[in-house]
């Protein structure tokens, strides 16, 4: 490695020496291209450098080949960093350390890069590989650059019996302080706040902090700032003068400067204003400013292997190698391999973009990305694509031929080429509503749920198209058989999608109104005021409709309908709905039959209320409790009857022993009402929050509706943070233990259930295995079904969906 002189103009300047930047620089060096690699710290790859000691770095996705002049395979942080230092030297990379780029001016062929240190570098092209981490703000006092000042806490358990001072009064600081203040760690924790109160933090964090303060777990010092940092000691500037406290570690959480503003200051445009937006890029990673290329996490590729490949590719492109195909070319080729026509990958991509409406606005680079998460298949005429009632949340697009939907017995409706199907599963998270066959020899593209959601977020045109089609289909399905798309056109035209937050009423009892609503996603509860108390009548899952009584009878609303969870409803005007009913008598009949049935049930509950008031109240209160616990969005939840539960924890033990030694449920934790206990355990939500942001995309919904994780978790913890019910753990599997008989007879090993952390630590010694996300998979692949239920000795544990549990039979039995 050599330190380059900042005078001559280089062909390419690479900003950021992470996996992407380093790989780009190494390629430039190999090509003999004049280059310079600018790194703001004094070491390569700061993000990975800051990982905790010994952290295991994974090399996902496995199917992707590495194309780089630097090495990379799964291994410990130290090993990977050492390899890269070696590779940088061997390749002859020109790296400049402590070059914190502050400003970029000029244009393609003559950029001037100014650093915070005052140096100016000249380059024809720039590769931006600065990642998304941003620059953490540093302490502004003597000793600010000492190594025991850290800017993030990966794992609070790395700190034991230490004096820790957290500087910063935002959420990050408070959360870190609470983490390391965990009593078992025996740390002495102090948090410093420059001002008097914690105004920037969330109320919950502040109250937790105050409680920890009262309990003596954290010393909270307000109007106090660090004055001088020394190894082992910290001098504070307090309202009462200076004070010197012992301090082994300083956690500085003073916010950071996000890279976006810096990127935009160069004139680079983003795809949108929201936080998830990425810079707009050409297929060669060139941004909207010619000569500036963006790769790596900043370009939307958080995985190391992607970054390194892009570093290689972008330098090849700059070098004029236009024939280079990306490293994923062979994967894409494999996706298209089974099709009858012979085309190159780029021809296929163009073919799909031309022929499928939702792909029309997608950029070529995005298209590659989407296709990697998709399948393309050829179907013979009459071949079944999926059956009604199958779980599935992928979206299908018709590239060639057409699809035939079975809407009633023997009645099929065609879906033409260019359109889509399967969107109901995508939007509502429920099982497939109809059987679909190929209407002719056809080519269908199956886009995974994650890719489809990304597509909808990134391409507004695609989102509109999907939403309109899904509304029309959903209505067709509800009023099956009697309707055609033409009948629905006026209804769909007048329809509006409304978002309803949890708990908000869509209809209120006694109000006048004739709009009809269809639940697009989420679920609703129906309540009626009986004797001055709202009584739960029923639970309506996504795909149901309500409000039809008003249209038919013209009477005021006879019950209140409110959202059980955050939901989306489609509002159809009463007028258009009435016209549709008038045109189709059989639909009217079916609707009337449904109304009659609902009315009968209402009066049944009312009659029970008269004679068995307390039983109905209990039923109603139980339903409210279940909804309050968020079970309205559950598809399958563990419920414990505490009249039967003896607290043996055999459910937890069975769970651990049926999987890799870790329990995915906490029986005792969670809320209870009238002896009905909702333990901390996965509910397999209709729209799983955990799936929302999984970088390696390993969380899926399985054939029995279970939400499970396939191998490949990188341990980022996003799913754990996104789960509102706290059911995902970050944990490493314990080592295998001796068998049951050898425990029973010889007392060897820790016995059934999850071994104690102490036992695990003793077995592992110094080894620190990587923690990955662990969640309930509903005992997927285990013939006997969920182990927690099978292993309950008293029958206290069952797994049910909310509508099964709240069935009218429950009330019927309670009042008999």
């Amino acid at each position, binding site marked *: 490695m050599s330190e380059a002189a900042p005078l001559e103009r280089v062909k390419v300047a690479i900003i950021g020496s992470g996996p992407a930047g380093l790989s780009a620089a190494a390629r430039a060096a190999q090509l003999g291209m004049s280059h310079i690699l600018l790194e703001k710290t004094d070491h390569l790859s700061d993000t990975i450098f800051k990982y905790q000691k010994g952290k295991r770095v994974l090399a996902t996705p496995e199917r992707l080949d590495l194309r780089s002049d630097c090495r990379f395979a799964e291994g410990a942080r130290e090993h990977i960093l050492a390899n890269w230092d070696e590779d940088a030297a061997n390749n002859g990379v020109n790296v400049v350390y402590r070059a914190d780029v502050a400003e970029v001016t000029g244009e393609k062929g003559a950029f001037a890069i100014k650093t915070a240190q005052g140096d100016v570098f000249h380059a024809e092209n720039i590769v931006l590989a600065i990642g998304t981490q941003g620059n953490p703000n540093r302490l502004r006092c003597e000793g600010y650059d000492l190594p025991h000042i850290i800017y993030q806490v990966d794992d609070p358990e790395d700190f034991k019996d230490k004096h820790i001072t957290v500087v910063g009064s935002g959420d990050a600081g408070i959360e870190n302080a609470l983490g390391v203040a965990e*009593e078992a760690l025996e740390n002495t924790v102090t948090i410093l706040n420059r001002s008097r109160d914690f105004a920037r933090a969330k109320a919950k964090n502040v109250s937790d902090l105050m409680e920890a303060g*009262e*309990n*003596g*777990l954290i010393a909270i010092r307000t109007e106090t700032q660090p004055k001088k940092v020394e190894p082992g000691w910290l001098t504070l500037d307090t309202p009462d003068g200076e004070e010197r406290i012992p301090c082994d570690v300083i956690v500085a959480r003073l916010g950071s400067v996000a890279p976006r503003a810096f990127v935009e200051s160069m004139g680079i445009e983003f795809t949108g204003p929201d936080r998830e937006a990425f810079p707009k890029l050409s297929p060669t990673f060139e941004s909207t400013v010619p000569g500036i290329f963006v790769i790596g996490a900043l370009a939307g590729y958080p995985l190391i292997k992607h970054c390194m490949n892009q570093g290689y590719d972008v330098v090849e492109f700059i070098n004029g190698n236009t024939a280079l195909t990306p490293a994923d070319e062979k994967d894409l080729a494999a996706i298209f391999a089974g099709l009858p026509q012979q085309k190159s990958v780029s021809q296929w991509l163009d073919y799909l973009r031309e022929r499928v409406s939702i792909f029309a606005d997608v950029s070529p680079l995005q298209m590659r990305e989407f296709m990697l998460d998709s399948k393309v298949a050829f179907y013979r005429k009459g071949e079944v694509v999926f059956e009604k*009632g199958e779980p599935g949340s992928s979206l299908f697009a018709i590239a060639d031929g057409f699809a035939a939907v079975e809407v009633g017995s023997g009645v099929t409706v065609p879906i033409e080429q260019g359109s889509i199907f399967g969107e109901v599963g995508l939007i509502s998270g429920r*099982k497939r509503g109809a059987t679909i066959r190929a209407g002719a020899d056809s080519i269908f593209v199956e886009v995974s749920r994650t890719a489809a959601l990304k597509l909808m977020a990134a391409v507004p045109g695609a989102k509109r198209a999907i939403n309109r089609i899904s509304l029309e289909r959903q209505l067709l399905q509800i009023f099956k058989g009697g309707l055609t798309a033409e009948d629905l056109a006026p209804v769909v035209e007048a329809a509006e999608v409304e978002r309803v937050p949890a708990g908000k009423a869509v209809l209120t009892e006694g109000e006048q109104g004739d709009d009809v609503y269809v639940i697009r996603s989420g679920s609703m509860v129906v309540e009626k005021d009986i004797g001055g108390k709202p009584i739960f009548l029923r639970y309506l*899952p996504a*795909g*149901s409709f309500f409000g039809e009584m008003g249209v038919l009878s013209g009477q005021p609303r006879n019950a209140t309908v409110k959202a059980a969870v955050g939901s989306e409803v489609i509002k159809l005007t009463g007028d258009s709905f009435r016209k549709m009913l008038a045109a189709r008598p059989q639909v009217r009949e*079916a609707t009337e*039959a*449904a109304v009659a*049935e*609902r009315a009968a*049930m209402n009066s049944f509950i009312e009659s029970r209320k008269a004679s068995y008031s307390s039983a109905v109240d209990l039923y109603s209160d139980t339903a409210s409790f279940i909804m309050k616990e968020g079970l309205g969005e559950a*598809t399958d939840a563990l*419920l414990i009857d*505490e*009249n*039967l*539960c*003896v*607290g043996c924890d*055999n459910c937890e033990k*069975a769970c651990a*022993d049926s999987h890799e030694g870790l329990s995915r449920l906490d029986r*005792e*934790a*969670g809320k*209870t009402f009238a*002896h009905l*206990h909702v333990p901390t355990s996965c509910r397999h939500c209709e729209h799983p929050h955990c799936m929302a942001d999984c970088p390696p995309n390993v969380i899926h919904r399985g054939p029995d*509706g279970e939400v499970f994780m396939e191998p490949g978790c990188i341990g980022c913890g996003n799913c754990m943070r996104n789960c509102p019910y706290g059911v995902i753990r970050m944990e490493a599997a314990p080592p295998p233990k001796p068998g*049951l008989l050898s425990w*029973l007879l010889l007392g060897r090993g820790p*016995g*059934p259930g999850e071994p104690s952390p102490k036992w695990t630590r003793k077995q592992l010694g110094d080894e620190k295995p990587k923690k990955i996300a662990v969640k309930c998979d509903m005992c997927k692949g285990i*013939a*006997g*079904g969920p*182990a927690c*239920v*099978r*292993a*309950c*000795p*008293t*029958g*206290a544990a*069952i*797994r*049910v*969906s909310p*509508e*099964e*549990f709240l*069935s009218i*039979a*429950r009330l019927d039995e309670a009042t008999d």
Partner: protein
Amino acid sequence: MASLFQRRRNRATQTERVRERRHEGFLRYAGFRWAKISGGLCLLIILSYALVDVTPRHNGGSWYGYTLGTIGALLILWLTALGYRKRRMTSDYWSLKAWTSAHVYLGLSLIVIGTWHTGFQLGWNVHTLAWALMMLVILSGLYGVIVYATLPAALSNNREQMTQMQMLEAIRAFDRQLHSAAQPLTPADSAAVLASLDQDPFAGGAWARLRGRYPDCATAAARRALATSQGGDADARVKVVQLLSQKEAALARLREHLRLRALLEIWLYVHVPLTFALIAALSAHIVSVFFYW
């Protein structure tokens, strides 16, 4: 509901093996299936005992006695296997609830099987020892059934959604607060508070735990002492007394929790060892019958 609202999911779940929608306890399992089987078995034995003519009289050594003895011995071994079944998480379908239900009712039927096997000939020998041990095992099991049926609701009411860890944590939190709040107190008062801090909340032994009475509770003593104490910082004392009563309430909850859990578990310490003693006595009984009788 109307066919319009037919739940799509229902169809799919019908194919699942067993899917209970309701909580049904082990005693009521499958409409008291095992109670009926076991009751029928007892009835059959009692009737046949009266009808079958064994000369000179009913005893364990007759063909009828051997039949009952064999059934009883095999049943005892099978009942013992519950402990293994409970811990062995094989992946095939079985329900521990069904096992428990069968265990309880068939175990009770052993009263009839075992006693009628003896032909009511009891004495001071190894044979009667086996019978007596069996009766004790059944008796302890009966206690288990009663506490399993009555105590869980009390356990649930007492913990009010708190976990055991949270209860301990709450007590520790009060201790920390007491520690700082007691600083201004007089030496005599702080000694009382310190005694409360130093006392292990579990102290008192098994008997105290089962009865839930802790007459030597240092926290209660400290609260009484401080309530009548004079001198020192009065405000600080009021705060400490308040904290002490809060800690007492937290302790009471934890102690009740531990008491109920102990009552739910204690019988297993009788039931299981006695079972092994029973198996040993049973072996001696069988060996002696075949070799020395």
